[in-house]
């Protein structure tokens, strides 16, 4: 299981990570932040394959895909 | 200090060299290992000498596509740890102003030799002192410059060494404002014991015991120690107005002033150390000839003749350094004068700062102009006689 980590201080809401994601996992939060950017967020992260293309295409070093051990454990216990 | 390549450096003793060759030899002795240039009369002999000689010292000479690129090479070479220089003549000097301005802002040690020829435009290929104001004011923006004025083959050698030493000491571009006259003439050059020649190298953060994580590229004092590329200091050379740590965001007027004022004052506050003035025949002189460069050679003959043959009490002052302008030293030397003569191979350029420095100390400052050729002693003498006899 992966977690979509976003640094809102660096993100400018360009949406390129959303467009690039091969599994269409990343989606827009639809909400303006304090600087007027609409930030992305992780959607159904269970479909994320950890390809890290979003990290690679991000112009602002704002995105990180994190392997979330806690989430994986949780998944094991309660798989649905 | 010269152990690795000393057998290839010019040997101590008496030599007979062109000013251009003496300049190149002085540079190599000072540690110059990168030369970049573009051919132009009457400066080309300097590059040709480097091209022949630098490989034997493990250095590199490159002919670039123009003068801007030639000067640009100096920045990269200097940041990568080498002492580097270029030489050009006036039209090329105009092209280099962009890089000189950048060198001042990034506090880059580099040496530019301008073998001046007349202008404007292509002018002519003869001799000139018409770039002395461009030397100071040619680059855009504030800042200060160091400019030396050689008058002999010996000067071409010694002042080029001094130019490197000053540029390393003060982390700034230094100009050698030569003229065709001194670059082309051949005369005796005496090379002393090499170990007796002082060679100054830039201070690095390692020298000052500053670790990479504590290093401020534009901090630690008026002359910041300079990190060399390839040594793990992750230094960013930047010419945008910057904070002492090299940060360029967070612009404000205070930071701007702090940045530029320090760059100017590290030079202007040290005029006494940097700028050299030679004075002769000062006792009981009522008039003075103030000169620089090759014109000094003519001027001293005129002064001698005025004193010895015509009994006119004329003193002789030679500016060995044009910039920073040695105003305080001039005011020490000239307390009370009648007339001051300023022979120059232009229509009166250094006459202006001289007048500014001494206007309350004399009745008149007279330009003695010549274009395209060295004054004859008669020319200068005639002007002295006309005004002061």
């Amino acid at each position, binding site marked *: 299981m992966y977690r979509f*980590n976003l*640094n809102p*201080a*660096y993100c*400018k809401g360009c*949406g*390129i990570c*959303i*467009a*690039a994601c091969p599994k269409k996992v990343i989606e827009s939060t639809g909400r303006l932040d304090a600087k007027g*950017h609409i930030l992305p967020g992780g959607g159904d992260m269970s479909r994320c394959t950890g390809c890290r*293309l979003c*990290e*690679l*295409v*991000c*112009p*602002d*070093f*704002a995105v*990180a895909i994190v392997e979330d051990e806690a989430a994986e454990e949780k998944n094991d216990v309660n798989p649905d | 200090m010269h152990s690795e390549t000393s057998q*290839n450096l*010019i*040997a101590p003793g008496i*030599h007979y*060299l062109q000013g251009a060759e003496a300049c*190149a*030899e002085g540079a190599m002795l000072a540690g110059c290992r990168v030369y*970049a240039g573009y051919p132009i009369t009457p400066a080309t002999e300097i590059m040709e000498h480097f091209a022949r*000689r630098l*490989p034997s010292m493990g250095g590199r000479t*490159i002919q*670039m*596509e*123009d003068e801007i*690129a030639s000067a*640009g*090479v100096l*920045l*990269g*070479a200097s*940041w*990568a*740890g080498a002492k*580097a220089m270029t030489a050009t003549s006036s039209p090329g000097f105009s092209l280099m102003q962009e890089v000189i301005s950048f060198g001042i802002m990034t506090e880059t040690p580099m040496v530019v030799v301008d073998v001046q020829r007349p202008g404007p435009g292509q002018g002519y290929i003869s001799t000139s002192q018409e770039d002395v104001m461009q030397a100071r004011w040619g680059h855009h923006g504030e800042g200060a410059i160091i400019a030396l004025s050689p008058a002999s083959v010996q000067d071409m050698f010694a002042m080029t060494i001094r130019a490197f030493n000053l540029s390393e000491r003060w982390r700034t571009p230094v100009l050698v404002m030569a003229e065709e006259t001194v670059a082309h003439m051949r005369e005796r050059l005496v090379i002393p014991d090499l170990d007796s020649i002082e060679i100054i190298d830039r201070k690095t953060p390692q020298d000052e015991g500053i670790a990479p994580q504590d290093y*401020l590229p534009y901090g630690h004092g008026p002359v910041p120690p300079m990190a060399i*590329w*390839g040594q793990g*200091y*992750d230094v*960013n*050379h*930047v*010419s945008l107005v910057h*904070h002492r*740590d*090299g*940060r360029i*965001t*967070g612009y404000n007027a205070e930071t701007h002033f702090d940045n530029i004022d320090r760059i100017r004052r590290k030079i202007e506050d040290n005029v006494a150390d940097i700028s050299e003035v030679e004075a002769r025949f000062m006792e009981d002189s009522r008039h003075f000839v103030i000169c620089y460069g090759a014109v000094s050679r003519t001027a001293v003959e005129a002064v001698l003749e005025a004193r010895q043959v015509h009994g006119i009490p004329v003193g002789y002052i030679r500016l060995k350094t044009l910039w920073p302008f040695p105003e305080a030293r001039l005011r020490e030397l000239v307390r009370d004068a009648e007339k001051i003569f300023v022979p120059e191979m232009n229509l009166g350029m250094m006459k202006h700062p001289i007048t500014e420095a001494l206007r309350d100390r004399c009745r008149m400052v007279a330009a003695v102009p010549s274009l395209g050729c060295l004054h004859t002693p008669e020319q200068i003498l005639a002007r002295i006689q006309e005004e002061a006899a």
Partner: protein
Amino acid sequence: MNEIGHPMLKYLKTEGPSGPRLPLILCPGCGAGQVLNYTLHAVDRLLAEDNLNKEDVVFISGVGCSSRLTSHYLQFDSGWTIHGRSLAIATGALLANPKLRIIVFTGDGDAAIGGNHFIHACRRNIDVTIICVNNGLYGMTGGQVAPTTDTGEKTATTPFGNVEDPFDLCKLAETAGAAYVARWSTAHPRQTVKTIIKGIRKKGTAFIEILSQCPVHKKTAPVEMFKALRRLTARVKEGAAVPDGRIAVGEFCNRDKPDWISRYQDIIDQENRHKDTECTGSI
């Protein structure tokens, strides 16, 4: 802030004594930021896989949006230099220390003001990797025409349309003598990383053009431009032309030839073997 950030942040100075250095100064969705990201990924791989020292990696740029990549946030030796002159400065650095592995960021504006330096750097085959972020206009100054702007295109300084033909920078680099020439776009992330790795490994001049988007001056959403770059490009295949109206991407030239430093080193070695006294300049 999340404690786990972008993997390339290890190569960036996020903070300094006088204040924060990130976010990047570039506009939202600017392709230049992507190019920096691709380049750092490539360098990351080289540091892990090759015998490359981080201390020897130097970034140099000139002036313009792409040149902002070589700014105060790089955790590398770097020089943010004069508009168009970055290759002259890179040449100087190599002359002083040939061990340096220099990466030069340029924009399409550098093909104008620095066109001559570009041609001659390729001709000399100086050992640098030139990464040219080509967005077809001058972004920093507000969207003026560039040497790579399409004919007929309206820009701030060609309000009635551009009457000039654009440069093909890759053809120019190849003709001028660069050892390695390739083109990709910001919409080819993995290909670009691979190509930059190849370019840095290549002895001699590697010229890599990366077609990029300027959402601000093209007044188009970053995502639309990003997608269009895929649509408008076609990969070159041996013996086949790219379809009409598509821009060729891929590797155009990869040849082995001695770089400037190697050839000059022969002269240095020769001069030090002979200790030629004839030209000591003594008289």
